């Protein structure tokens, strides 16, 4: 029984590590949003300040999915 439990534990920890790769996707997404905002802002600086709120919303939506993967990792590690 003990060996079986350890196997389950090992699988859960490997899964938690794999779930963390999802954060890379969120990183790419946020970089994309901010990079495009910056390139637009440098072309038309006078319109930039009116779009900061939109940029933060875009960041929030793309970040949420990275946070979901973090949550999956936490659930695998602590909630069994």
């Amino acid at each position, binding site marked *: 029984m003990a060996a079986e439990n350890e196997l389950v534990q090992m699988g859960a920890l490997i899964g938690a590590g794999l779930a963390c790769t999802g954060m890379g996707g969120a990183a790419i997404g946020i970089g994309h949003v901010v990079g495009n905002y910056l390139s637009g802002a440098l072309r038309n600086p006078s319109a930039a300040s009116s779009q900061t709120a939109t940029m*933060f*919303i875009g960041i*929030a939506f793309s*970040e949420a999915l990275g*946070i*979901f993967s*973090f*949550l999956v990792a936490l659930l695998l590690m*602590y909630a069994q």
Partner: protein
Amino acid sequence: MATEGGPNIHPMEQFVVKPLFGGHELNWYTPTNVTLWMGIAVLVAVTLLIIGTRRRAIVPTRSQLLAEGLYGFVYKMIEDINGKAGLKYFPYIFTLFTFILISNTLGLVPYSFTTTSQAAVTVVLALAVFLTVTIIGLVKNGVGFLKVFWISSAPLALRPILAIIEIISYFVRPVSHSIRLMGNMMAGHAVIKVFAGFAGVLGLFSFFPIIAIMAVLGLELIVVFIQAYVFTILTVIYMNDALHPGGH
């Protein structure tokens, strides 16, 4: 994890909910450290706003500047997105913003407890927003509120498919709304504790992790503000659906 020598600091230990007056039983009425720090957050917010608005001087003091800055920031955010119709709900949104901002910031104080890192707290906040928006939308617009799901600017053939996607995304809102705040607060504070764990093990070289902790704390100070801002601005945008369904 720290091994031998130095204090053993587990990064997740700070998120344990404990009863305040000893014992291990947790009932819904038990006063815990979450209750304590939520109370402190409310107290700080009320004190700040009362002291800040007491004198109403033309040349503001620091606390008046802070209180007026918070007020003006949220006021402008609602006015920009919802227009004049949204200002009716200003008190609710201002309360949400102040409470989340101050609980997040209090969590950065050493030995304190971050109430917004508990899913129970953020889910209640997000569900309250979800129910408020749905009820206001249904009361104000009646059946017309369902236009939120029926995108009239899309081609007719696409609309049923889009309606399904919109309905799913509408009901996932409270989940992502709450988990975003909880995850950000938990992850950020756990990172600080991981570096604190390094400092405990390294002994003489703990100098380097302590510098890293300072840097991460500076980053966290930005994150706590941005997360309070994001939570509030998403509330305002969801409210926009209730006030002007369909058109913008």
